[in-house]
């Protein structure tokens, strides 16, 4: 059976490490997907170049009018219940991907994708447990608008001309406790934090050709400040598949290195200090980075 991070995320430069060492296989708790739906319709102009190289099924005669990117970050601590933390986030993303591929969504309502996915998780015979943040970004090609939904502390950046023009807001209940979708065991009902998919932040804005959209889990944003990310993105010469993959991989690797640097003043450490906690160093965490560029659509 295919693992959920093949082939989409590997080629997008995901760098995964188990938080805190010790786990042998190093399965990441984060997940993501890039998917194309099969909605027939107006002649599209833009697409997310991120997955130009990917195989996607197309039924004869339909043209894909939308592209969607999503990331999810599983919350640890579920191992105490004998639950694999990657199961929830992975299944959530796989379900979102399936929804998008089958066209069961409205592009201007990415929160709907989250809500429907979450409901579908409950329809699984397997008793899924766990919790996860989620960030979904949909490019509506015909209207050239980007619709986003973000629940928790994963997020996205939109970079235009070397500057961040849009970004998501972190949703936290309190320090290091992001908003999260969860399915709790019956004995822990009411004790486990469980936010409704409706609580997701939702934004829409126009995008232009050449805009870079970076979607990532908090492992990136907690370890790498904006200017470093922008520096890496400047190196992106052209919008072909290999360059994007290369850049995404290098960003993730760099963040990973910084995470284990004990003297480095990471954004996470900075925030902690601002709140009265005296810490330094990076924040070891699983990191998923998805890079996409808005490019011209050619049939």
């Amino acid at each position: 059976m295919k693992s959920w991070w093949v082939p989409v995320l590997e080629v997008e430069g995901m760098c995964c490490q188990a938080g805190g060492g010790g786990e042998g296989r190093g399965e990441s708790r984060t997940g993501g997907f890039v998917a194309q739906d099969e909605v027939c319709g107006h002649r599209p102009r833009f697409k997310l170049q991120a997955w130009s190289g990917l195989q996607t099924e197309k039924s004869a005669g339909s043209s894909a009018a939308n592209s969607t990117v999503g990331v999810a970050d599983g919350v640890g601590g579920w191992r105490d219940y004998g639950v694999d933390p990657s199961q929830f986030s992975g299944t959530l993303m796989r379900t979102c991907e399936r929804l998008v591929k089958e066209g069961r969504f409205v592009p201007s309502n990415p929160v709907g994708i989250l809500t429907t996915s979450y409901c579908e998780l409950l329809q699984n015979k397997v008793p899924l447990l766990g919790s996860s943040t989620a960030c979904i970004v949909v490019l509506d090609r015909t209207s050239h608008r980007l619709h986003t939904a973000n629940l928790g502390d994963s997020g996205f950046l939109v970079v235009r001309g070397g500057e961040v023009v849009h970004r998501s807001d972190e949703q936290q209940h309190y320090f290091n406790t992001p908003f999260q979708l969860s399915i709790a065991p019956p004995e822990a009902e009411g004790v486990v934090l469980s936010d409704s998919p409706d609580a997701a932040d939702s934004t829409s804005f126009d995008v232009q050709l050449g805009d870079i959209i970076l979607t990532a889990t908090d492992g990136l944003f907690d370890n790498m400040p904006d200017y470093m990310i922008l520096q890496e993105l400047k190196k992106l010469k052209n919008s072909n598949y290999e360059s994007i993959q290369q850049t995404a991989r290098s960003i993730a690797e760099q963040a990973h290195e910084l995470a284990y640097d004990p003297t480095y003043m990471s954004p996470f450490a900075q925030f902690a200090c601002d709140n009265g906690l005296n810490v330094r160093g990076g924040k070891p965490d699983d990191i998923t980075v998805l890079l996409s560029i808005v490019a011209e659509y050619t049939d």
Partner: protein
Amino acid sequence: MSPVFPMLTVLSMFYYICLRRRARTATRGEMMNSRRAIESNNRALPTNVEIVQYAKEVLDFSSHYGSENSMSYTMWNLAGIQNVYPSSGDFTQTAVFRTYGTWWDQCPSARLPFKRTPPDFYSQDYVELAFEDPVYPTAVHILETYHPGSVVRVLACSANPYSQNPPAEVRWEVLWSEAPTKVNGPQARQFTPCIKQINFPTNLIRLEVNSSLLDYYTELDAVVLHGVKERPVLSLKTTMIDMNDDDEDEDEEKDGGGMESLNKQFSVAALKEWPTNGYFDKLPYELIQLILSHLTVPDLCRLAQTCKLLYQHCCDPLQYIHLSLQPYWARINDTSLEYLQSRCTLVQWLNLSWTGNRGAISVSGFSRFMKICGFELVRLELACGHFLNETCLEVIAETCVNLQELNLSSCDKLPPQAFNHIAKVGSLKRLILYRTKVEQTALLSILNFCSELQHLSLGSCVMIEDYDLIASMMGAKCKKLRTLDLWRCKNITENGIAELASGCQLLEELDLGWCPTLQSSTGCFTNIARKLPNLQKLFLTANRSVCDTDIEELAANCTHLRQLDILGTRMVSPTSLRKLLESCKDLSLLDVSFCSQIDNRVVLELNASFPRVLIKKSFTQ
């Protein structure tokens, strides 16, 4: 010898040679073409490229495991390419029917079968798939990913579901049909039945299934249709004889080709006069009736055409007390009902399930039939009757004053207001509303007036807002209730259960599968166990809160339990299951799939100690 004779011989020989030569050139050209076409397919004159298609859309089906509007275990997964195949296992992305095995025939809500079912009709469920382009089918591949072996029939329809104009004639042809056979093991397989060639292009395929030999739910992933656009070259023999599409030979009748053939059998035929009936005159009337009662309906109609005496027998309404037209669903239309009218005046059990779709039966045709034949009706099966509308139900309520059993399973096109009429049938003992759009007010009305109800199915009735209210009404009014199907009733809580358990103490069967709002901590399952000691079947499928206490309560109180499903709970341990198995000696089905504390080793141990119980443990990988 006269001189004329040699002259004649020479002339005839001359003519013979000329004619033969002309014949040879006329037919030889044809023969050469077809032989060439057969030998060298690539160089065939019209391009007969094989097109491979996956199903574009699922149009209709009789049941499914999943929830309406969901992608998990629902029939809609059969469209498109495969999601799981070649992996084996119990996955959400497949198409799953509601039932399997013989368990639903062994529980208190089991139905008595109709007599006179033809020996070649095994179908229990069906699904209809539309493809993009009509083709002459050359192969059909069915990708089964779990417990394969359910498909028993493949049919093709001449009507194009995407054409703008309604079709002139809707014809169903059986591509393949076989009795159910046991397939060992749950492993995935590609099933390619050997289909026959048909003489019309089709983009509407129907699969009929029978899961009675299967050990668990079967799951289908995709259906692939191979076909050619141009009519394929048939064998040499048939090319020569060239064909009239409306061939009415014996074989076609048996295969169920057109409605014409069946209606012809029903209609009055001119019968020959004979002076006596031979030995038949010596047999008592009742004996001939008894002999004829073993014939299937089409055979009865054919027999009616033989002589006046047998015609009289075959048209005797006593032969039509139990009438099942479901096996002939493809061929029943308004005309058939009209021909049957005069014979069905005493009909008590009528099965019109699966019939009448795509315009075959009209509302007026059905109403007319009901008004003549409805008075004695006791049992009426109308599953998947998409031709039904509110008027039809009104007619049923008016004419069928003695009706005790009504099956409207999967009549999902019936508007909600149609169900208002059911309350008028006060004698109802069994009502099946699985997957219908019945609304709260209509249902409350039914429960209020149909106090004789013993069997009620409300599975997947998504339009009901408050199941607690429904349960409360049941507890108050339906004291005789014995079986209740509340599968996927989304919002029933412990309050509804409490009222139900107090009021309906005769309950022997309760299906609460996939009801997520029931929490064990409220004591609702304990309540069920203590108040309903006659329970034989209890399904608590996918209720994640079922725990050891509940199992122990069942063990202590419900000793007649035969079927129990506790799929998907993490809170039940082997110890309490052992107590249950020791106490409930009649238990024959125990589904512990996805129960995390019950692993395969435990199942083996329990199997060894309790060999008569079939313990089901499904897996994903």
